[in-house]
């Protein structure tokens, strides 16, 4: 396992290198350069040259890249001239909010998706199975923002049951202190994910239910409840754990549609806005964060897989 981890870390550094080089390269592909986008239509060639010199865009690409990497190693993610904030402050401002929303959405979707997926497998082809399959397909095919808009319309504007917007506080404490305002955004986010978990859980459970070890367990007199929850459940979780690990990056990348609909500026919206504004420092900083999260997510998935399935060894 240690050797595996060392190899994965080595691979991760290479991935991180290529992703960041590519991102910086893409920023430079912008017509007129990122400074043109920063300064707008009234910039004169002299002003563009001045700012190119100020921000170092007139230096060779590799010099710019090394300078940026050097900053990174000192904990300096850069500075956004568009927002007049350091990228680290932006991350500090948006990341906790995104983690709260995405984590709650994940938890709610898992709490419903896993048991209902098992229920569907155990009671397959029943009315309940068909009903929940229909709901899953609805969740899977409905765009997240549409779910959000419908919920806002029904439960906020028309009936005033819940607030229209997610908590508007800036700290995690203030967000969690307003649980009513979290209901609609979390449901909107969780609805699509629930579909994913329940379908995979159903499928995985059905596969495991016909395995020899299940027949053996029944032959040994295990109750159906014990068969499902002690024997089948753990094996069926393997695919879920893999998917969960791959979902880890969304804790960082955010959920832009939910953020927009519920007025909850987080990492997703910040990333999108930075791309529109060619805010290269923010783009690079967020890219590093998202890449690290993706790498970690994959690692968590692989380790979790090994923990669940003793046959898997690295």
């Amino acid at each position, binding site marked *: 396992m240690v050797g595996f981890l060392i190899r994965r870390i080595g691979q991760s550094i290479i991935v991180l290198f290529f992703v960041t080089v590519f991102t910086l390269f893409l920023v430079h592909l*912008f*017509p*007129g*350069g990122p400074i*043109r*986008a*920063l*300064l*707008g*239509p*009234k*910039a*004169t060639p*002299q*002003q563009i040259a*001045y*700012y190119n010199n100020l921000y170092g865009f007139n230096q060779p690409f590799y010099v710019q890249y090394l300078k940026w990497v050097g900053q990174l190693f000192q904990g300096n993610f850069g*500075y956004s*001239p*568009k*927002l*007049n*904030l350091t990228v680290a*402050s932006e991350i500090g*401002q948006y990341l906790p909010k995104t983690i709260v929303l995405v984590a709650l959405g994940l938890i709610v979707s898992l709490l419903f998706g896993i048991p209902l997926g098992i229920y569907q497998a155990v009671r397959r082809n029943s009315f309940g199975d068909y009903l929940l399959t229909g709901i899953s397909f609805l969740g899977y095919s409905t765009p997240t923002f549409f779910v959000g*808009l419908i919920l*806002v319309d029904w439960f*906020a*504007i028309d009936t*005033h049951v819940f607030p*229209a*917007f997610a908590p*508007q506080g*800036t700290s995690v404490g203030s967000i969690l202190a307003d649980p009513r305002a979290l209901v609609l955004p979390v449901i909107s986010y969780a609805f699509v994910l629930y579909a994913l978990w329940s379908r995979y859980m159903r499928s995985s459970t059905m596969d495991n239910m016909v395995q020899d070890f299940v027949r053996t367990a029944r032959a040994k007199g295990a109750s159906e409840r014990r068969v499902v929850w002690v024997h089948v459940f753990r094996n069926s979780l393997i695919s879920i754990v893999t998917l969960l690990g791959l979902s880890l990056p969304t804790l960082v990348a955010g959920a832009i549609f939910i*953020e*927009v*609909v*519920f*007025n*909850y*500026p987080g990492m997703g*919206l910040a990333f999108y806005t930075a791309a*529109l*504004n*060619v805010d290269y420092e923010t783009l690079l900083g967020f890219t590093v964060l998202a890449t690290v999260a993706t790498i970690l997510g994959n690692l968590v998935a692989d380790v979790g897989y090994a923990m669940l399935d003793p046959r898997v060894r690295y």
Partner: protein
Amino acid sequence: MFRNMRRPRLARAAAGGVAALALIAGIAACSSAGAPPGSSSSSAAKSSGGTVTEALLPDVSLNYIFPFVPLADASEYNTLGFQEMMYRPLYYFGNNGNSLNVNYPLSVANAPVYSDGGKTITINMKGWKWNDGESVDAQDVVFFLNLLEAEKSQYYGYAPGLMPDNISSYKATNADTLVIDLKTAESSIWYTYNQLAEITPFPEAWDVTSLTAKAGSGGCAADSAADGWAKCKAVFGFLNKQAQDASTFATSPIWGTVDGPFKLTAYNPTGNISFVPNKDYSGSPKPTISEFTWKYYTSDSTEYTALKTGQIDIGYIPSQDLPTKPLSQVLPSTNPLGSSYTLQPAYNDGIFYFQPNTNNPTLGPVFKQQYVREAMQEVMDQDGITTAVNRGYGYPTPGPVPPQPVSQWVPAIEKENNGQGPYPFSIANAKALLTSHGWTEQGGVMTCTTPAKCGTGIASGTKLAFQVQYPTGEANVQQEMSVYKSDAAQAGMDVTIIGQSFDSILGQDTQCSGAKCTWQVDGSGGWVFNGPGFEPTGEPLFQTGAGSNAGGYSNSHEDSLIAGTHSSSQLSVFDQYATYTAQQVPFIWTPNTYVVQAVNSSLKGVAFSPFFDTLPEYFYFTK
């Protein structure tokens, strides 16, 4: 934004100078500084206190607090909607209404006095106070001017030849009097509106190089070119660094020194930006409300949801949520928000246009022909687009001067043809213009068959086929382009519309020459005259080589008329420039739109300046 600053002088003996002073005073008197149009009929009892929340546009960021704004952070929202609530400029422009004029009651100085044939300007300060007890005096203006001398390349409004380059000297002759000497005589109107407008007095408390330093210890207000403005450079470095840390805007003692009606108490660029009244404000009126908050929303629909659920007092109704209305009406017949909100139009002091590239190797010679531009204008159905695409919430751009709100700047020619200007929509006229100049329709596309008539540099066989790049992201823009393409085709112009991101167009469509200068028509043009220059003269757009003249339009007579607006204090000279430019049609004018704002019915005194002036000191709740 637009900037043009000159300082006219008023000669003690010169009749022309006196007339210019009278003209400026007269123009200023047109402004209704104390009469917000939205509230004059209210008879409900006024109550004091209350918090007013207003929505920011989704893509607007109030991100720079220091009034010495670098180009990267230049926007009317930062200046008029943020900084000027706290730091009043030397001369304020606009009012809580539709005025486009200088507003001396809201300014920290009295009207400038021009003398010596227009080369000397005397400015008398009113004696207002900063909230730290110090006076807003002449030395505070010197402080700004010294910083400008030291760091002009960092200032968004600077262009070579303009302030401070056109100033030969300036001096505070006593505590409240500043005298500025210009290198050449300038138009009193232009210099007041477009150069003096740039000045914001800075407090002595900012003349420091650290947070704990004594006020004035930075030495910038007393600095000079003798040491290369070293002290000012150091002070600027400190202030700029402070301004780059947005998280300290509401807490820094630097930004807490204000002379405006409000001071900042909370700052979150994606949340709330809140102000409370400055109880030491010297001006009038004094704020009645207890707090004003800008509220950020992620999108139009989110903001509209906030309006529908009554979470904000002032917001805008997204165009897609407005019912269609006839052009003759300003507001919709039915209020989508019901009686909880009253509706008001909010105009912008701007013009919108396509820019043809006269330096394109193939089509440049074609676009250089005035008759071609006239024909391109005559297939722009501005009223039709406004009705069909913008649901009636707009009006034509007829020339270089914004037609709304009505002002002294609008030439008569722009009012012709029901506000469409000299070249109203007429496909037949466009076709006739082209055919009378040697073009023949072949396969549905106008082709030059008589080069001698088509114009210099236009070869036989040249087709009138061109690409128009437009910014993606807004459905109505694409629809406008489609309408234009369709109408142009009827006149034999083969238009290809190409959607790209605004920033891509910005990067590509620049002044160029040679074989690589391939862009043809930039469909994303627009200019709003809301600072740093408020007189809509044409040097950044239509002058040969101007910074925003991306298409390379060049006309020596145009250039001389523009120069005339800088040297003459007569409105008639400006009128000549505006009329000629409308006739020349250097750009293809496109429809302008206005926003329908919604105001809480119990909130009065709210009006929407075309400059984006934000004057919550006029707001009040009714009982």
